[in-house]
């Protein structure tokens, strides 16, 4: 039991780091410790967290998906065009884009699987492709004026002091929970972990590795599409340059959350915390506001370092304290 609990240590360490960071920020800025800041964290990072959930599956399986940022960009452009220019009803457009994304992800997964190519490069090509196609669709930013959008962006649980739990945040929370169930409680989830532990062993155990791989990339792309929908709700527009570099943010969040980039270990909740830590760093920097743009970057880097070093240290302590005395093996 102790050994199985110990697998949670990285997540607990990340949680501790996040809380410590939040408290530290609140001590510096009195306005910080407010429900509003927390709700903003949730809303502003909703699309990132949704992508990070998909990315967690991919990374745990030993892969990587660099295409997600571009898929978000593509999704927003597609939605804007479909709704504004082609007159597709918004809900219909959502379904359509998710199907397109699923096909896109499945294609990448199939190429990775059947041609035995590195995921990094296949999804990099996917990243070029998705962004390139959105340029072809439109290089202009297109506002989405559909009623549904206005309605959804108005819709929110409102709390005291003007803070709101918005639709994007609610979708994100649902995705995180569903991701946790899928990863931790289903056969598919176990197969994902097994793939990351040893691809070859998984095949030898009689798991359909090809199907699992294709499904994983499909899932990641579908979630990226969903994140794109959320992003378009968030900005009520479609723009081919939106969400550039989000793949790196998502990967960083997943890894900060305690998932091993080499696969096999990790938790959805950890990735969620990773997203929140990144959001926290940004919020801190914008609260400070006195940093010139370069100092802001340096500070972001240093804070990232501080968080990771602290996390490493916490893990180290946790491991040390768990070591039993001689002769009594856990």
């Amino acid at each position: 039991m102790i050994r199985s609990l110990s697998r949670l240590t990285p997540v607990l360490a990340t949680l501790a780091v996040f809380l410590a960071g939040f408290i530290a920020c609140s001590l510096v800025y009195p306005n910080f410790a407010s429900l509003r800041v927390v709700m903003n964290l949730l809303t502003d990072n909703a699309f990132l967290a949704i992508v990070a959930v998909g990315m967690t599956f991919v990374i745990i399986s030993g892969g990587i998906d660099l295409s997600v940022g571009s898929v978000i960009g593509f999704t927003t452009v597609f939605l804007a065009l479909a709704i504004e220019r082609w007159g597709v009803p918004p809900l219909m457009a959502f379904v359509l884009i998710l199907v397109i994304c699923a096909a896109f992800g499945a294609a990448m997964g199939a190429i990775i699987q059947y041609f035995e190519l590195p995921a990094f490069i296949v999804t990099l090509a996917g990243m070029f492709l998705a962004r390139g196609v959105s340029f072809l669709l439109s290089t202009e930013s297109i506002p989405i004026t559909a009623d549904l959008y206005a309605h959804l962006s108005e819709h929110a649980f409102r709390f005291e002091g003007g803070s709101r739990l918005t639709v994007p945040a609610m979708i994100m929370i649902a995705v995180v929970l569903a991701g946790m169930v899928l990863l931790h409680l289903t056969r598919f989830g176990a197969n994902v972990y097994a793939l990351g532990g040893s691809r070859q062993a998984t095949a030898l155990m009689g798991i359909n590795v090809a199907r699992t791989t294709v499904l994983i990339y499909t899932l990641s792309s579908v979630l990226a599409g969903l994140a794109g929908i959320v992003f378009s709700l968030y900005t009520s527009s479609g723009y081919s340059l939106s969400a550039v570099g989000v793949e790196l943010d998502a990967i960083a969040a997943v890894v900060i959350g305690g998932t091993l980039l080499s696969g096999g270990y990790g938790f959805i909740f950890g990735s969620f915390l990773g997203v929140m830590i990144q959001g926290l760093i940004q919020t801190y920097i914008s609260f400070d506001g006195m940093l010139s743009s370069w100092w802001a970057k340096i500070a972001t880097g240093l804070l990232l370092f501080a968080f990771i070093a602290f996390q490493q240290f916490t893990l180290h302590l946790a491991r040390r304290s768990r070591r039993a005395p001689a002769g009594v093996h856990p």
Partner: protein
Amino acid sequence: MALLKTPSGRRCGLLPQRLPRASRPPPAGSRRLPAASEAAMLATSPPAAGAAPDLLALIGFSKSFAGFTALDRVDFTLKVGEIHALLGENGAGKSTLIKAMTGVVARDAGTMRLDGIEIAPRSAEEAVRAGIATVYQEVNLAPNLSVAQNLFLGRQPTRFGLVREGEMRRRARALLAEFGLSIDIAAPLESYSVAIQHIIAIARAVDQSARVLILDEPTASLDAQEVEVLFAVMRQLKARGIGIVFVTHFLDQVYAICDRITVLRNGRLAGSAPVADLPRLDLVRLMLGRELSAATGRRPPHEARAPSTAVAAFRGLGKTGYVVPFDLTLRAGHVVGLAGLLGSGRTETVRLVFGAERADCGAAQVAGQKASIGSPREAMALGFGYCPEERKTEGIVAELTVRENIVLALQARRGALAPLSRREQDAIAAKFIRLLDIRPPDPERPIGLLSGGNQQKALLARWLATAPQLLILDEPTRGIDVGAHAEIIKLIRDLCAEGMALLVVSSELDELVTYADEVIVLRERAHVARLTGAQVEVPAILAAIAEVPSSASPPVRAA
């Protein structure tokens, strides 16, 4: 109660001594018959070979890898309710035949019938669906998943699509209990030793097997008790009419349980016969294509040896939570053996000695000088060498060639800036390939493509190439065939005669006593007995191992 790595009797026909084991009823008969008569007895007992219908029939299996022929028109038949030994030297093609059968390796030619119906599985998944469950030679489970998940991966009990964790754990416990294993099944697989991982792999396959069960060297890392448990399970399956293919290098086990033997040599079918028709000597000749040199005899009497200088001495070396502090002296020309149960701390002991794990107390003296050993590098600088137990994860670098793997340690000791010339490397590789008979004798082949036993030999070569003063070997003969086994034991003796100090961990006690000058017995991560001279005998070691432990539960697992 303690699980024991009992002496084998596995290879020399010695009687296995049993230790009291509260939780498990003593197996029927405390004595086992000598191998030959046992085989004779088995041959007369049902099911009579030949009477049963063919379950699995392979015809003309061929496979070559980039010009190298691993299988050449091999035929093989397995009958209903038969346990069929598949034997051969390292690299003979046993594992390849198995992988070709299950579709993991695409065969070049050959047809295969199960119950008279032609099948051609193209992946392990299809093989399992066709009713063929397999334990491959290298443990092939997901190291990061829990034991329970590994047992039920792909077939977990579910409700509404969700895995019923509780139910799965319950079943996992029940399944492992059949194998006398009571471990934390929620812990990740990799936290257990290879031996336990192997049992888990077997349990998974047994639980899956519908028609055919294939076991590729399942017993390599098991001790006698576990082997016995496995055999009991195999007999049950056999009674249910399941056909079992069994690969091993322990001939006693063949005679103890198998009905029929098929021997491969250099990828060809060398012969196939009921056990009764193939006495041990004939079998060995069939496998090797020659007589076995009489190398496994007893070594000269212990008294004859004068105490020599200490190469290394450790005082109070230990680490909290890892190994209780111990004293250990290693002398030139002496072999110190470490004996104990699974998880008794033998591997831990040698890792401390080699600095692979940093000790937190104690002192070391090497060649009379005070020394600190904080890392393998420091240990190597002092003339130590360490051939680890877990070949796949800690030994080989799979994609490097045999040559590169062999020179790796020597090169590391010389430092990056003093590279061995290609000529020197070729010479070293050629020398050890010849000396240890590594097959195929191609130094430029990625080592990952060699058979398991040949990888083990190349690792041994890696350390021999550094000509160490102290060589530490952890289970050096695991997975090695009869012929090579004898060679390696001879090699250990020769090294010893040349004045090298050796520290050897081995689970095969009667092999250990043939070369050890001193045996240290471990229990629960502590050194509990030291046997020297005439005391180095299997019964004495067993007695020391068996001494009722002071605390209630033994480490790692309890029965």
